[in-house]
């Protein structure tokens, strides 16, 4: 994601790595300090892929490098804006795996897994709710609200897991979609 954030900032005008870091931090409400190393690794990768290039005059010097977006970089960025995000959120995958593996291993009490997870989600929800109206930046507020909605859905899903478990519905195999 950092790749496109940097391309987007460079689409306006050429910038130093330091400017990129500052502008991005500012756009995110000034709450997050982005690791310099992360910015430079990403810039190096973008340069290798010819999506950005270093301005000619800076190439030999030891001074700061100015990065410029290339035509290919603009094309990549435009394509990214055109595409909806296809990949579903994966933040909760580990819970699902824990659920399945716990069942296979026969070592874990699924109710206990749910209880613990619920506790963790509720604590996260409390922490996020404390942020609403206080994140400072309206766009960051939106992100917080989004995370809250996701957590509420996660909590409802835990209820569903529990309900199905109690009714013994998880033991019956069902007709499944099979690979042709």
């Amino acid at each position, binding site marked *: 994601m950092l790749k496109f954030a940097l391309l987007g900032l460079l689409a306006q005008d050429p910038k130093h790595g330091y400017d990129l870091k500052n502008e991005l931090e500012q756009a995110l409400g000034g709450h*997050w300090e982005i690791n310099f190393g992360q910015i430079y690794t990403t810039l190096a990768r973008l340069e290798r892929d010819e999506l950005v290039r270093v301005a000619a005059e800076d190439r030999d010097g030891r001074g700061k490098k100015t990065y410029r977006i290339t035509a290919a970089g603009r094309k990549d960025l435009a394509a990214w804006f055109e595409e909806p995000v296809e990949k579903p959120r994966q933040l909760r995958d580990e819970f699902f795996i824990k659920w399945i593996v716990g069942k296979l291993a026969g070592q874990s009490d699924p109710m206990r897994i749910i209880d613990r997870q*619920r*506790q963790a989600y*509720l604590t996260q929800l409390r*922490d*996020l709710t404390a942020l609403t109206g*206080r994140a400072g930046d309206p766009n960051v507020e939106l*992100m917080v609200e989004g995370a809250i909605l996701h957590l509420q859905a996660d909590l409802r899903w835990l209820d569903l897991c*529990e309900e199905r478990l109690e009714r013994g519905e998880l033991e019956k195999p069902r007709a499944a979609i099979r690979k042709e």
Partner: protein
Amino acid sequence: MNMIVETKNVTKTFGMNGIAVEAVRGIDLQVREGEFVAIVGPSGSGKSSLLHLIGAMDHPTSGEVFFRERPLSRMNDGARTDLRAREIGFIFQTFNLLPMLNVFENVEVVMRFGGLAKRERIQRTESLLKTVGLAERMRHLPNRLSGGERQRVAVARALANQPALVLADEPTGNLDSTTGTGILELLREICNSRKQTVIMVTHDFRAASYADRVLVLRDGRIRGEAGLKGVTDTHKTLNQLLELELE
């Protein structure tokens, strides 16, 4: 810590068109003094019925409810009314203010049966309305107030007799999320600084997350329990969130 509320295998069955509906199916609950407990569940899970039993507003079909170790079933109607008036404060989803009384009077009126001198009643009412941020609106009638303001009057009223226990039934149900947050912070504050106990029922996990402990209710039974520990570090929370988003 002492228990303020305890229920032992409490049940409630309603008759509806000749069909018995079990709203509460055997609940054992213990709430300590000064705790903020949220009971969360979908509609029809029995949470309001349970709250009515705890608040001595209704009698259980079987089982027992204790208030500070006193069994409610042994109290006569007079004693129950007294308990509700002096030791329990109620907050409802629909505010339930008296429309012909202004903000000040809505709070003050509930102190009139407590044998408090007029001067003290006035002082306490003003102080409570200041606490809930309505010092400037004391002479307004409820219909001139927003939903959030009405609920804040209701919170002040619930606290008027300095009850040990505050019961809240979907207190944010009719409010937008920002206004609701204000009410929840107020309830949190009641617990933290006044050491009063709060039991809130809600269908909203977000509201529930303000509590010290969350009980999940479904089909009239407690299905899960979660204690919320630690203190929020907002800076850290935001950091983690941004890091995930930008990964």
